[in-house]
């Protein structure tokens, strides 16, 4: 009892002390509310039989009617599989490749060289998907493509109609994804790496640690919080996909759908003709809810394993 009595006034003092800090955070919080929370109110559209004469709020509720088309397709399973598997591959290899390249870059000495490599790796990230899709098309076009004309032909092989053969596309898409996005992931890890105090490495060197031992025992443990944060955030988007990658790069070739179609592409194709707000918000709500569940689960697992690394 006495403990509680002592605590209460202390809490008040704490609050009072932090008020200026909350005050500082106020503009950011207001921004967050206006930009991220108010639009969430739009979720109701997904459950409405939208009627513009009645207005948004007065439209009739229709339960899960707007969600049905998501599962109507015979390929619903394939679409879900594609979306999730591609994301899993992107998350795992994103971490591995991102860290590898960041460590390699960290080993480069000479400011100019670092800047040069960094820019070279980052440039694809700044390109639009449409431009990239034409680059890929220039490589794989059946008629005038680079592979068919400059590699397969001189070798005497038959040309391949790349855009008609689904089996090649997982490899192509994964390659294109990393070619484009690696620069950005790398920069995040790299900025963490240069923040690690050189003293650790100097001490390790004195003790005779090899490069690999240094990476394993110093770099990776210190990067762990970043890796966990990025992975959890990416898990939240596991049901979403980069529309540019999956729509522009295969040039919406129907034959490739078994391996290239993700949820976003399906939604786009299904609603292209009827432009339905309610059904498209249903798709977003579905993706957001599944993503949210994934974040909770992933965070829960991490909290069990090492509590200090959990996000919340």
């Amino acid at each position, binding site marked *: 009892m006495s403990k509680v009595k002592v605590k209460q006034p202390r809490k008040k003092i704490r609050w009072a002390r932090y008020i200026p800090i909350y005050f500082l955070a106020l503009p950011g919080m207001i921004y967050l509310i206006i930009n991220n929370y108010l639009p969430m109110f739009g979720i109701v559209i997904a459950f409405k039989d*939208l*009627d*513009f*004469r009645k207005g*948004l709020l007065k439209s009739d509720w229709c339960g899960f*009617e707007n969600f*049905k*088309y998501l599962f*109507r*397709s*015979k*390929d619903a399973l394939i679409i879900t599989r594609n979306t999730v598997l591609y994301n899993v591959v992107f998350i795992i290899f994103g971490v591995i490749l991102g860290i590898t390249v960041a460590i390699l870059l960290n080993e480069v000495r000479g400011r100019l060289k670092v800047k040069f490599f960094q820019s070279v790796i980052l440039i694809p990230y700044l390109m639009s998907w449409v431009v990239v899709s034409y680059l890929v*098309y220039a490589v794989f*076009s*059946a*008629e*005038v493509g680079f592979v068919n004309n400059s590699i397969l032909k001189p070798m005497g092989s038959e040309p391949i*109609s790349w*855009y*008609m053969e689904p089996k090649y596309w997982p490899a192509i898409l994964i390659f294109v994804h990393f070619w484009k996005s690696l620069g950005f992931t790398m920069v995040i890890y790299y900025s963490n790496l240069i923040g690690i105090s050189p003293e650790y490495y100097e001490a390790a060197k004195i003790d005779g640690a090899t490069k690999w031992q240094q990476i394993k025992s110093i770099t990776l443990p210190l990067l762990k919080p970043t890796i966990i944060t990025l992975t959890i955030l990416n898990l939240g988007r596991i049901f979403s996909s980069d529309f540019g990658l999956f729509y522009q790069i295969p*040039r*919406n*070739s*129907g*034959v490739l*759908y078994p391996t290239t*179609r993700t949820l976003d592409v*399906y939604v786009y*194709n*299904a*609603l*292209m*003709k*009827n*432009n*339905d*707000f309610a*059904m498209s918000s249903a798709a977003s709500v579905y993706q957001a809810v599944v993503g949210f569940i994934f974040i909770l689960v992933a965070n829960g697992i991490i909290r069990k394993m090492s509590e200090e690394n959990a996000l919340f």
Partner: protein
Amino acid sequence: MMKKSRWAALALAGILVCGTILTGCGDNGGNNDAGGQNNSSETGGAGNSAENDGNAGVETPDGEPYEVVMSFPYYGTLKPDLQMIEDAMNEISVAEINVKMTMLPLAMNEVLTQQSLMISSNEKLDLMLGMRQSGFLELINKKMAIPLDELFEKYGKEIEEIQGVSMEKMARIRGFIALKSACDAYGLDYENEIGYEEMEAAFAKAKEANPEGYYPLAIAGSNLTTFEYFYNVDLLGADIACGGIFDNGHAGSEIRNIFATDEYMEHCRKMHEWYEKGYISPDATTRSEMMQDLIKNGTAFIYPSWTELDMVSRQSRGFGEDAVAITTQGKSVNTGVYQGQCWMIPVTCENPDAAFQYLKLLYTNEDMINILYYGIEGTHYVLTDQDRIIQYPEGIDGTSVGWSNALGLFGAIAKRYEMVPLTSDYFTMRDEFNNSITDAEKSPYLGYAFNTETVKTEYAAVTDVITQYRASLESGSVDPEVVMPEFLNALEAAGINTCIEANQKSLNEWIEAQK
């Protein structure tokens, strides 16, 4: 059903629609001339009838002109003289009906979304356009437009006189447009209706003459279609996802799954054969060039298109050499003609009466329509010595002119001038063409449009399946023996039969209501 028939009635008000240049004149040239010559007396008449309604023009509390905001879809870049056009049109409309107009330029591909967003956020918009087949239905499905029955009753008579009757004569011809020189060289007949065999023979010769990198039939894009250029399929104002009717519905009102027909299978077999023989590019479904550009590049000579009079002359201009129309079937008037481009009044419009009166002016006043189409005489165009044929002024061409209405929308096309190289003969030829249309060439279901809202889940799923298979089948890129069964299964699983049944039911009801 009550609701449905009201929308069908609205589709009739889509008489206000003008889809193609061939929309044509009124009943005959005489009618037209009367409109032109007695312009002043006619508008006087409009004033009188308005007075009879106890309503001269549009009254506003302060007497200021009412402002109508009207969508103006454009293509490419917006021409700079928008304000000049607006001012010139307002001068007429304020004097006539006390309404001034503000044009709201919308890029062609954003029209639907922008209009929907404006309505949902209650922004001022008084006249909007439903464009293309699905555009019109979408706006109605989403309950964004008001029924125009009453307004049409009140003000629409004159529009009907000018435009309405001729709508039923708005025939279109599906076929192909080809380079004349190539047709002559490869022996392709452009005088008579032809079929697969004749084309195949010409393609073989063309391929023989140009073995490398030449694919005579230009088709391109992930949404390409070829079937509809060989067969007359009426989609009943909806999409092929809800089935269609062959032969303009004269063989009965049964709506069929077009993809499951023998004709479709045969067509895909033929396309596959052509694809294998190199008559169609292996990149057909993935390339994004315009089909016309493939011809200009010299890698093809024929592409599927509508082939009415003006289309051919316009293409000749585009190619820089003579083009000809290859026809595979006669002309036909499908239900789709009512849905090409429809004027609509959004539910959010404050004064639908004023909006409709403005619309009427667009259809009855020759000056209004020509300003909107071609700009101001002397600045944007000059008259030629031929009656009602105009051309660009000295030193100005299609790219440098300060105004253009490239999408060719709006108002009474019958009262519109035409550009060179068309000659005055065109008007006569157009009338002849329009008058030559027989009842057999008209769909008996003109005015019907299927409202897909009732089956929206299935419709979305079926649309997706079609996107997946259609282009590759119709471009011959895949073997129909293997893919067709898969396609048909997927369509059924997605619910195409539900869509077709709903369409059939609603058509039967419509037919019943017409009796």
